[in-house]
C-alpha cells in the first residue's frame, strides 16, 4: 500500500481507521482498484515514478466530516488533496499534486443549496456538476443561465477555483469573478465564511462580495489554504435574444484597429458575448471543412510573421479570403441588440475596406431543435462534444490519450498578437518546439488574450518526455517575452511559479509566508500551484 512520505505505517493505519470512523467503511478507499479512479488520466508521467498517486481517498458528505478529516490529518501529518468532480483533465484531474496524499473526494457533497431567480444567484456544494445545476434550473423553469466551460462535465466550484472560463457575458464567463461568497474549512479544521457570510444573519452573502477588511477569497483559488465547502455564484438572467455579427478586414496590420475597436465595444458593454477571431487567408477558419493550409499559404504566413505581409494580403484578395475575420456576439433585448450591432459596424467601418456579415437574431429560450444546432456553451448549456480526437489515435486507439496545455496570457492588442507569434515562430524555427505556424488567441478574458497550445499525452514514455520538454521550453521562452501561464497541470506548476519572479520571487515568498501561517503542518494540498509547506521546501528546480 502506498502511504504518505514521512508518515509511519502505524500512524497511517491509525489515521485511516479514524477517517473510516468519520465517513463509514464504504466511503474510505484504499485498494488499488479504488485508487485507480484517482489517477490523472491525462498525466504526462503516466506509469513513471513522477506520476502523482494517491495513497487513499475519503468521501465525506457534510461539512462536519470535512472538518473532522482535516483535524485527523493534522494529528498525523497526513497530506490531503480535495477534489470536487475530478474532471479537471489536463490540469491534474482527480490525482493529488503530492504523491501519497489522501484525496478528499467531495462528490457526495452535491446539493444545490439555493438558486435565487429573483437575485440571479446560486449557492452550491462542491460536488454539484454543471449538468446537475443546469438540470435543476431547467426542471424548475427558472429564467437564469449558467456560464459553462467546454466540456461541461466539471463542477462550478472546481472550475472557478481553478480560474476556468466560459463563453457568455464577461461578468459570468470569468468563472472565479462570478463567484460571490464562500465557506471554507481551514487547515486547522476551523470553518470560515467569506464576504457577507461572515456576518451572522446576513442575507447578502450572494450579493456583496467583500464584507469588511482584506478580501480573502482569492487566497482559496489555485491554492492550498483550505477546502471550499460552499460557494455562491452570480447567474446570468436569461436574455431575450442573441445575435452575432462578423467583420472582415483585408490587411494584416488591420488587426490593430480591429482589436482596439473590439476592446472599446466590449469595455463599453456594447458587445457582450465572447468574440472569436480567425484568419481565412492563413487557412484558419471557424469552419474546419473550409480550412485550407497549402505549402504556398504557409510560406506567405512565415513572411507575414517576419514583417512582410503584402504577399499574404495579395493572396487573400485573390482567393477572396480576408486576412482577419472577427465574430462578435450580443445578448440582450430583441429590439436593442440589432442596434448595438449597427453601432459596432459604424465603429469598425473606420477600418478601410472592412466588410460585414449580419448574423441571425435568435429569440430565447431556444427550442429543442435549436439546442441541437447552436454552440451550446454560448447558451449556457453544458455539453460533451468537444475534443477527444487525441483521446484516441490510429496508432493506439484502444488506449486513453489525453492532452496537456500551455495557455499564456498576452495583452489585448494586435501588436501583442504579432509579437507573440514572432516569439512562437522563434520557438518553432530555432528550438524545434512543435507549435502551429500561426497562433490565434482566445478571448475568454475580458481584458487580456490567451493562447492555447496542446500536446498529446499517452502511455508512451518517450512521447510524453518529448511533449513535456516542448511544453517546458515554451513556458521558459514565453516567460522571457513577458507571457505567463494562467493555469497548469501539477507537473508544470513549480516551473511556472518560478517564472513569476519579480523582485526575487516576492510573490512566491508571500504565498509561502501565508502557507506557513495558515497550514503550519503542511497538510493541505502540498505543492499545489508551486506553493510547498515548509517541511517540503526547497523543491529541486525543474
Amino acid at each position, binding site marked *: 500500500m502506498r502511504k504518505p512520505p514521512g508518515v509511519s505505517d502505524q500512524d497511517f493505519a491509525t489515521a485511516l481507521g479514524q477517517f473510516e470512523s468519520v465517513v463509514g467503511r464504504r466511503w474510505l478507499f484504499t485498494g488499488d482498484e479504488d485508487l485507480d*479512479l484517482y489517477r490523472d488520466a491525462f498525466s504526462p508521467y503516466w506509469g513513471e515514478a513522477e506520476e502523482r498517486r494517491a495513497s487513499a481517498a475519503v468521501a465525506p458528505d457534510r461539512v462536519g466530516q470535512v472538518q473532522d478529516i482535516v483535524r485527523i490529518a493534522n494529528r498525523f501529518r497526513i497530506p490531503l488533496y480535495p477534489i470536487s468532480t475530478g474532471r479537471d*483533465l489536463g490540469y491534474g484531474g482527480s490525482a493529488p499534486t503530492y504523491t501519497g496524499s489522501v484525496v478528499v473526494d467531495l462528490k457526495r457533497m452535491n446539493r444545490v443549496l439555493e438558486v435565487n431567480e429573483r437575485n440571479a444567484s446560486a449557492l452550491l456544494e462542491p460536488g454539484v456538476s454543471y449538468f446537475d445545476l443546469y438540470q435543476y434550473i431547467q426542471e424548475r423553469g427558472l429564467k437564469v443561465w449558467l456560464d459553462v466551460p467546454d*466540456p461541461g462535465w466539471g463542477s462550478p466550484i472546481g472550475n472557478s477555483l481553478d480560474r476556468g472560463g466560459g463563453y457568455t457575458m464577461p461578468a459570468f464567463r470569468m468563472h472565479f469573478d462570478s463567484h460571490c461568497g464562500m465557506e471554507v474549512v481551514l487547515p486547522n479544521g476551523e470553518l470560515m465564511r467569506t464576504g457577507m457570510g461572515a456576518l451572522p444573519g446576513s442575507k447578502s452573502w450572494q450579493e456583496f462580495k467583500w464584507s469588511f477588511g482584506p478580501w480573502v477569497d482569492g487566497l482559496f483559488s489555485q491554492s492550498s489554504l483550505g477546502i471550499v465547502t460552499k460557494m455562491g455564484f452570480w447567474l446570468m438572467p436569461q436574455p431575450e435574444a442573441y445575435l452575432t455579427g462578423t467583420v472582415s478586414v483585408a490587411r494584416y496590420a488591420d488587426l490593430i484597429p480591429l482589436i482596439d475597436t473590439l476592446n472599446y465595444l466590449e469595455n463599453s458593454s456594447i458587445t457582450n458575448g465572447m468574440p472569436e477571431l480567425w484568419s481565412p487567408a492563413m487557412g484558419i477558419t471557424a469552419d474546419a471543412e473550409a480550412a485550407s493550409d497549402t505549402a504556398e499559404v504557409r510560406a506567405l504566413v512565415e513572411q507575414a510573421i517576419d514583417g512582410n505581409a503584402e504577399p499574404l494580403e495579395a493572396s487573400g484578395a485573390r482567393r477572396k479570403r480576408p486576412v482577419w475575420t472577427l465574430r462578435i456576439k450580443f445578448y440582450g433585448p430583441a429590439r436593442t441588440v440589432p442596434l448595438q450591432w449597427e453601432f459596432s459596424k459604424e465603429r469598425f467601418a473606420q477600418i478601410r475596406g472592412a466588410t460585414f456579415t449580419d448574423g441571425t437574431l435568435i429569440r430565447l429560450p431556444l427550442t429543442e431543435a435549436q439546442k*441541437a444546432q447552436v454552440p451550446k456553451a454560448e447558451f449556457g448549456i453544458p455539453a*460533451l462534444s468537444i475534443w477527444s*480526437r487525441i483521446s*484516441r489515435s490510429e496508432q493506439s486507439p484502444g488506449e486513453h490519450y489525453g492532452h496537456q496545455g500551455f495557455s499564456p496570457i498576452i495583452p489585448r492588442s494586435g501588436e501583442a498578437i504579432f509579437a507573440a507569434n514572432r516569439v512562437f515562430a522563434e520557438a518553432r524555427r530555432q528550438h524545434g518546439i512543435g507549435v502551429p505556424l500561426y497562433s490565434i488567441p482566445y478571448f475568454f478574458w475580458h481584458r487580456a488574450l490567451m493562447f492555447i497550445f496542446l500536446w498529446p499525452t499517452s502511455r508512451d514514455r518517450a512521447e510524453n518526455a518529448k*511533449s513535456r520538454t516542448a511544453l517546458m521550453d515554451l513556458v521558459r521562452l514565453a516567460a522571457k517575452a513577458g507571457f505567463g501561464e494562467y493555469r497548469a497541470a501539477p507537473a508544470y506548476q513549480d516551473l511556472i511559479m518560478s517564472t513569476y519572479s519579480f523582485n526575487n520571487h516576492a510573490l512566491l515568498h508571500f504565498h509561502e509566508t501565508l502557507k506557513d501561517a495558515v497550514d503550519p503542518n503542511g497538510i493541505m494540498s502540498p505543492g499545489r500551484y508551486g506553493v510547498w509547506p515548509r517541511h517540503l521546501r526547497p523543491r529541486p528546480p525543474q
Partner: protein
Amino acid sequence: MLTRRSLLEGWAALATAASARGVFVRPGTHPDADLAPVATLLVDARSSGRDELARAAIGAGVRVLDAGADVAPILYRTLLHDWRRQAIKALAGFTSATSLFYIERFAYDWGLRTVFLARHLVDGEDARWVRGPECMLNRLAVCARLEGWGSAAVSTSLRLPVTPRPLACSQARLVPDMIADGALYSWTLMPIARHTMPMTAETAL
C-alpha cells in the same frame, strides 16, 4: 503538437480519408471473465447504419439509445441515472470517438471497462471493414456462441461474420458509414471492477 483548431480541422481530414488502414481490436481486459448480457446499445444517430443496428438490437431485447454529436443528454439523463441506482450493466456502442471517450471516462468510475473496441474505416472501394487480430476474432467466435451477450454484441454492434483468419478483411461489404467528425467505433463496456463511485443515491433537490 495540437491546437484546438487543428483538432477541429483534423476531424474534417479524418472524415475524408480514403485509404484503409489497420483496425485496432484490443483484447479484453479480463478475457476469462464471465460476460454479462449487453443491456444497452448506443448508436450514433447520424450514422446511415443506425436503423439497421437499432432493429437488430431491439429484436435481441437490447435497449437502443441514439447518440448525437453531444453525448451529454444520454449520459446525464439515462446512463448516470441508471448507474446511480446500481443498475450497472454491459453497454455496447457504435459511436464516434468523442462519444466513446466521454462515456468511457464516466463508466470507468462505475466499474465498467472497455473489453472490445473496433474502428470502422472506409477504404477506396467504399466499403466498411472491421479487421482485427486473430485472437479477438476467435474470441468473437466464442462469444457468438454464448447466450445473451455474445449474440447481442456481435449482431448489434458489429454486423460481422466471424473468421479465425488473422488480419483478414471481413467478408462484409457494407454501405460506407462515416460521420462528419470521423470514424465510427464499435465497443463494449462490461461491469468488471467493483463499483466504487462515491455518490449517494439521487436525492430530491
